[in-house]
């Protein structure tokens, strides 16, 4: 069904951005916000995920949670593609502050400057924060 058909039927498509600013495991926000993204995928909105500040740590490779006895939910980021959530953006400044490069991340992302992130945020219809 084309976007126009969806709109005509009253099916709104909004630009949804999920803003991730927290490290994983130290708090539940990263995990529970991911759960929103997965459920939200069924609603076929125009979804982007933005990783800023400690949120970039959510995407770090090599998470091994056996010794802390918590669920390792990092593989879920690789599954996002299957849910048609493909627009993952990371702020360069946040990465640089934390000594991370794209090679450290477990999924392909688009790295943006702060100015680009600011512009991207302005383009959204709804922004979720956790």
């Amino acid at each position: 069904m084309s976007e126009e058909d969806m709109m005509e039927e009253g099916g709104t498509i909004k630009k949804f951005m999920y803003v991730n600013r927290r490290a994983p495991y130290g708090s539940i926000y990263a995990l529970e916000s991911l759960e929103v993204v997965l459920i939200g995928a069924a609603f076929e909105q125009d979804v982007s995920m933005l990783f800023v500040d400690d949120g970039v740590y959510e995407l770090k490779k090599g998470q091994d949670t056996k010794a802390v006895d918590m669920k390792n939910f990092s593989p879920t980021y690789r599954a996002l593609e299957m849910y048609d959530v493909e627009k993952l953006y990371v702020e360069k400044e946040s990465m640089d502050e934390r000594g991370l490069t794209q090679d450290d991340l477990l999924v392909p992302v688009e790295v943006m400057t702060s100015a680009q992130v600011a512009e991207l945020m302005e383009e959204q219809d709804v922004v979720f924060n956790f």
Partner: protein
Amino acid sequence: MKFAIQVNEGPYQHQAADTAYQFTKIALEKGHEVFRVFFYHDGVNNGTRLTTPPQDDRHITNRWMDLAEKYDLDMVVCVAAAQRRGVVDDDEAKRQGKDATNIAPRFRISGLGQLIEAGIQADRLMVFGD
């Protein structure tokens, strides 16, 4: 204006539940519509009827209930977050084999889809958290 309100924190622990309440109350008094108040993360704890706060301080859960009563407000507690934290209604008690319920009146337990729907239907999503 049609608002959707997301409350990420429990009563008393953080000011989020208070600020969310004040915002919602004033918005309604000003004649705006509040499509839904969605309680996520520890926010689900706003919806338990078992709290006994000190007599000389605000009763957060009762305050939400009174507001919902006055304006026919839809207050939804996220089922996944509620299961993790032990906020239970009759259906959940039956389904999960729990020997008690603790949901407060005027709150209902439902899925994350309710948050997404609120994001789609409302003009503004307000997020209150830590």
